[in-house]
């Protein structure tokens, strides 16, 4: 799947936040979403590059991928399980 064509149902902006806030917010936002909806997370903490893919691959959710933007932050895509 081409990451740039994914259409997210919801976007969560965690730019400027550092560990553990991005992951905490991601977990909380996903909880409020419906199964098979897609969440896009924006973040610029280097720690998130391990945390978000590592965590969201577990517990029934699916990590769809991530991509760096020219503005220095990363976009992550997670599908709620």
């Amino acid at each position, binding site marked *: 799947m081409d990451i740039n064509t994914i259409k997210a149902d919801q976007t969560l902006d965690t730019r*400027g936040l550092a560990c553990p806030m991005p992951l905490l917010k991601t*977990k909380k936002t996903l909880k409020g979403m419906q199964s098979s909806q897609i969440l896009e997370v924006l973040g610029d*903490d280097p720690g998130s590059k391990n945390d978000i893919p590592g965590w969201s691959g577990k517990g029934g959710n699916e990590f769809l991928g991530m991509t760096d933007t020219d503005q220095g932050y990363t976009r992550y895509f997670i599908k709620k399980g």
Partner: protein
Amino acid sequence: MAAGSLIASVKEEARKNYIAVFEQDWPSWLAGIFIALLALMIFLWDAPWGIAGGYKNWGNWVLYSLGIFKDKPFAPWLHPMSLSNFGIFVGAFFSAMMSRQFKIRQAPPLEYAKGIVGGILMGIGAAFAGGCNVGGFFTATGMLSLGGIAMMVGLGGGAWIGLKYLLWELEHLPAKPLSKKDGSGPFLGINWDRVQPYIGTGVVVAVVAAFYAYATIDKTVLGGLLFFGFLIGLVMHRARFCFVRAFRCPFMTGEAEMVKVVAMSLIIYGMGSAIIKWAWIKDPMMGVYHPFFLGSLVGGLIFGVGMILAGGCASSTLWRIGEGHLKLVMTMIGFALSNALTARAIEALNLSDRLGKGIFMPEVFTWEVTIPLFIIFFVMWAFIAIWNEASEKFVIF
């Protein structure tokens, strides 16, 4: 093979290794082994590794300069823990430069406030426990001081309380994301991504030069501490090694990864120090002064809340500053000042006797029992965390 293609293949090999060492994150278990070994080397080289004492030295200096404290503290460049702390910062800065990850990282106002409050709480907790997550927990446990275990319990409780607060905050204080100006244009017209590794190389040269400079003025021990700190900072940044996770993740995501790593690291550290102490290579009572159990337990509890608010403990505050996080600069300032003040207050009020005293595990359990008990205890901790990962029994939301 033609000379041209040989050079090309050496270059290619160097490039691949550079990426493996400086761009890809190291696995945390590898960092766990390195940190235990480096901590043992610091013990053999000089005295058990700690961090809060360095912060306290910095706080004392500020308070002395303001005229609040009358007695002149040790100069920071002659204070052992101040130097190893500075080494951790420099090591992380070097690593961030080599991996082109250094950036001045701003945060929303609420995060700065949490950074300061977290730092203040950690400073108070560390003063009560006779050390931070390193000196009061990691090294204390490694040195077979029972206070380390009491602080571990406190840290777990504090992490739980801190996480409850963060969840409350998410409901009640929705933070506005930092509005980013688009395009991180070249600062001073320099392409920093290209320049960073050269600055990093300069930093290594400076650290090695500093070691020899210390040696020439007969302070080789201090130069060595700077260098060991540098290695710890490098390892911690490369693996993003964070003690906080071992206490937070079981409640937050259920992940057991860092519990396993810290448990393994402590088994290496504890058994290494058992060899050193049982054989009397170093005085067995070295590093055994943590106030068991009240000081360590209560200090751990306060410290645990603080490290969750700050998003970093004593060690990860240093390496995250090396990566450019301004929030943790606030944390460091709060930590240094509150630790110096609280330590002074405990002294003035004569509280130390009531907080407890240092207890050496082999003195209570004998060497023969301490060693298996120590190993079983940390293996059990790891197994409970693994069970929790599957059952999510302790996950609070």
